């Protein structure tokens, strides 16, 4: 499509795109502005407004100041907890999903369609429904209140998505390539390592982005299966939103939301280009 232009309507196209982009940016702008207004100012005026005094201190409070009960260390320690959960879970679910997707698409084995179908259905099983069964499982294997338990949950649940996308991506790899390698005596892992993995950058970026943002933003399991000092960043964010008996701390909350979203936003900004490229390269089949 890149080699065509629509001469007469260029201006209106730009107009429409910019209009939509403005609408898309509105929530971000509102949050950024609120992150620079004091709690009192927001409480006494409205949610949308230009800061009267630039309350840069909101960011300091959000980063290392505000208290979650006894712990007055801001969002910082919780960011670290989230990283400890998110990074391993993203790596494991992506790698295992890539191997599984490779096996299902190029290394067909007995029963693969069935097991693949079931794993894919996992995309549609609501999280809330799995909470209690996970409680029982984590209890039985002794991983309640450990970050390892959360990594395990997110790895296993993440497989649904990563397997689906990797399988669809690898389905486009020419089978002759694999067959030739096998005739040369290369085994399962050798082929994966030498042939498949080097081809996989686009789809791995897609699954990494997807997994990272989902796990980073998860709340329900994060607060149920951790305690006190191990809680993820979403728990600290919720602590800032209105308690019934308190004035909402919208200013600090907005600043914390922005800080907490920085890792995922950065990943999208840096990876956005590859995101589309990865999808173009075959994941959409």
């Amino acid at each position, binding site marked *: 499509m890149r080699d065509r232009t629509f001469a007469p309507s260029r201006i209106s196209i730009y107009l429409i795109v910019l209009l939509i982009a403005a609408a898309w940016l509105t929530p971000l702008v509102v949050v950024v502005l609120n992150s620079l207004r004091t709690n009192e100012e927001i409480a006494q005026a409205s*949610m949308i407004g230009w800061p009267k005094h630039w309350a840069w201190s909101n960011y300091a409070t959000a980063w290392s100041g505000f208290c979650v009960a006894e712990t007055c260390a801001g969002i910082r320690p919780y960011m670290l907890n989230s990283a400890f959960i998110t990074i391993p879970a993203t790596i494991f679910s992506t790698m295992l999903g890539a191997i599984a997707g490779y096996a299902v698409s190029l290394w*067909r084995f007995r029963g693969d369609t069935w097991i693949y179908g079931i794993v894919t259905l*996992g995309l549609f099983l609501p999280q*809330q*429904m799995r*909470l*209690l069964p996970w409680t029982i499982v984590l209890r039985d294997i002794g991983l309640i209140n450990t970050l390892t338990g959360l990594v395990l949950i997110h790895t*296993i649940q993440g497989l649904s998505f990563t397997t689906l996308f990797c399988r669809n991506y690898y*389905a486009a790899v020419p089978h002759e390539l694999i067959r030739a390698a096998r005739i040369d005596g290369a085994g399962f892992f050798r082929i994966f390592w030498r042939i498949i993995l080097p081809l996989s950058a686009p789809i791995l970026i897609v699954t990494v982005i997807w997994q990272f943002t989902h796990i980073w933003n998860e709340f329900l399991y994060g607060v149920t299966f951790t305690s006190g000092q191990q809680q993820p960043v979403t728990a600290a964010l919720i602590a800032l939103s209105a308690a019934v008996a308190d004035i909402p701390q919208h200013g600090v909350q907005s600043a914390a939301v922005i800080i907490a979203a920085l890792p995922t936003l950065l990943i999208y900004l840096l990876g956005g280009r590859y995101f589309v490229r990865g999808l173009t390269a075959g994941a959409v089949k």
Partner: protein
Amino acid sequence: MIDTVSIATRPVRPAIAGALRRLPEYLMIWVPLLLSALHLVSFSLWTIWISFTPSTLVPVSGWVGLRNYTAVAASRNWQIAFDNLLLFGSAFVLLSVVTGLVLAILLDQRIRGENLLRSIFLYPLAVSFVVTGTVWSWLLSPGIGIQKLVHDLGWTSFKFDWLIDRDMAIWTIVIAAIWQSSGFAMALFLAGLRSVDADIIKAAQIDGAGPIRIYRRVILPTLWPITITVIVVQLQFAISAFDLVRALTNGGPGIATQLPALVVYDLMFQRSLLGRGAAAAVLMLLILLAVLLPYAAWRYVQRRRAIHA
């Protein structure tokens, strides 16, 4: 999502030595997949079992027959949630497909700053549902949000109060959900548009076809498989949009925007009626199956066609 035919040969029944040599690869393939499948199957079966027990605060054994199901089906909450799911599910999926497609086509017009614009449409995906719900509730609450802003600017008859309107509130969830997720649809469609064979388009241009005609006749038909993918992904989004709804309307005004996922969580954990919550969850899974089975059938037909082609 069309299956390509696998021409890789199935391994011949291996000798024991071969099997041992292959143990690591079997482990690597089977352990994660089996664990994943096992947790899904066993969790579902567990939930089905619980739905027939008198469990309240914690799971207990016992048998109450279909009582949990009849109680859920008779509750106003569930009835409203069910209607809302039909409305929300179809409106959201349809509109996000349209929005995603429009955005993709616009971005595909060789416009300047495409990278920046793409990032703008994609960034909501990076934001958590809770944050999306909260921020949109700020914007959409007429007393503090957009309506108040416009009033303060002088246009006092302006009205945008869907959030507090029982009939329209469900659409605020649609708006927030589209804002958050149609970037993904756009990315998929954009990927699809970029992989359309340039020669076909050239040929159509030589035949004198206009741009709209080219889109309608040549390009869009090739996007059909992507559209199915988008629908599936958005459907998954619609189901998991629980946090978003909770933060945006929490089922209100009144109970006008209840959704099945909300009812499940509410029954299970807020009202401490595990059995009923499980029954609601099973009903929700049945609804899902009703949507997914036709899709699976469609894929099956496609695959057969591909094999026989």
